[in-house]
């Protein structure tokens, strides 16, 4: 009996979990897209809060972490930007665009860090 119900429970969990995560992604995507549109108008504070919300809704959304890294960089928050870019790379290690953003950021970050450490 137990052997028969176990796969059923697994299937039920799968059926519930997949739409939930899809819902989360679509909600987070809405925030990301709105963030992009306001960032293009120079409204970085609003964009930052949208992308913060996006990663809160879906912490596995690499694009949202990437955008958040850019927003923090624009705001001069280098430590937060570094963490966000690293999270994006960890989630999507093969994404060349994220890596390119990160490399450009590191050039500035390392320079300012060296200066502070001196």
């Amino acid at each position, binding site marked *: 009996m137990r052997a028969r119900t176990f796969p059923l429970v697994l299937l039920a969990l799968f059926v519930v979990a997949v739409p939930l995560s899809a819902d989360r992604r679509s909600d987070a995507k809405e925030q990301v897209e709105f963030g992009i549109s306001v960032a293009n108008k120079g409204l970085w504070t609003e964009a930052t809060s949208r992308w913060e919300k996006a990663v809160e809704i879906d912490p596995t959304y690499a694009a949202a972490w990437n955008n958040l890294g850019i927003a923090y960089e*624009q705001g001069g928050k280098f430590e937060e930007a570094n963490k966000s870019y690293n999270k994006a790379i960890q989630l999507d290690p093969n994404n060349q665009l994220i890596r390119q953003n990160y490399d*450009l950021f590191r050039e*500035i970050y390392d320079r300012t860090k060296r200066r502070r450490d001196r």
Partner: protein
Amino acid sequence: MTVRSAVAIASLTLALAVSAACVSFYEIGIETPIQAKLDTSPFQRVLVLGFVAGGTKDVDVNSETVRLLRSQLRTKSNLKVIDSDVVSLVDVVDKLKSNVGTAATASPASTSNATGGSKDDAKSEKDLESYDSIFADVAYWKKLGEEYQAPLIVTGSIYFADINKSGIVERPQEVYDQLGRRTVVSVRQWMDRKGFAIAPKFIFIDGRTGTQLYTDSYREETLYQSTQNTPALSSYFELMDRLVPGFLNTLSSQKIKSTRVLLK
């Protein structure tokens, strides 16, 4: 409108709509703010006094550097730039050394009337180190600060010299195959190259106390093919162009413009 052109327009519109819907990244310009390295709020004026200069005699590095930094600070900092004679610190140190025994510390006014470079032979990078003692002479800088109403003092050492660097250089070369297709391959080649190197050390001194506030060192070089004849002064400005943003960032916040890619 013919049926064919209507179909063409419709398919173009559809293609544009599809591609717009598929775009998942956007390039965006950002301005990364970099905080000033030094808090200049206690100062209203800045005095670029002069440098311990060495290297080539083709360029009066001391005068050119003072002139360049003053003009940059005039336009890109909030501090009032003091116009004064350019001081050759090499001469100041030499005078101070010769005065040892006759006076404890020479007055800056009596030692700072020398302008331009040193009258001596060209100084090597090692020679310049022996002049470093001047930067720790608190009494000298404090006295100077009193003369100019306690400004922020910019000084330091600067070495500018020609260099020769021959060796194997890797460079891209265009290659065409039998069908005329172009490819770029990396070719290793022995090259005789010459150029210039610059190594400035900028020292920022508090004119109220005579103490050092901050020191920043740089090193840059530029190389050309040995057949190319580039004047020393033009190389000097090319190299200083690379250093000046870093120097200015010591005194004022700056924004670095670049682009990033936003993702959907």
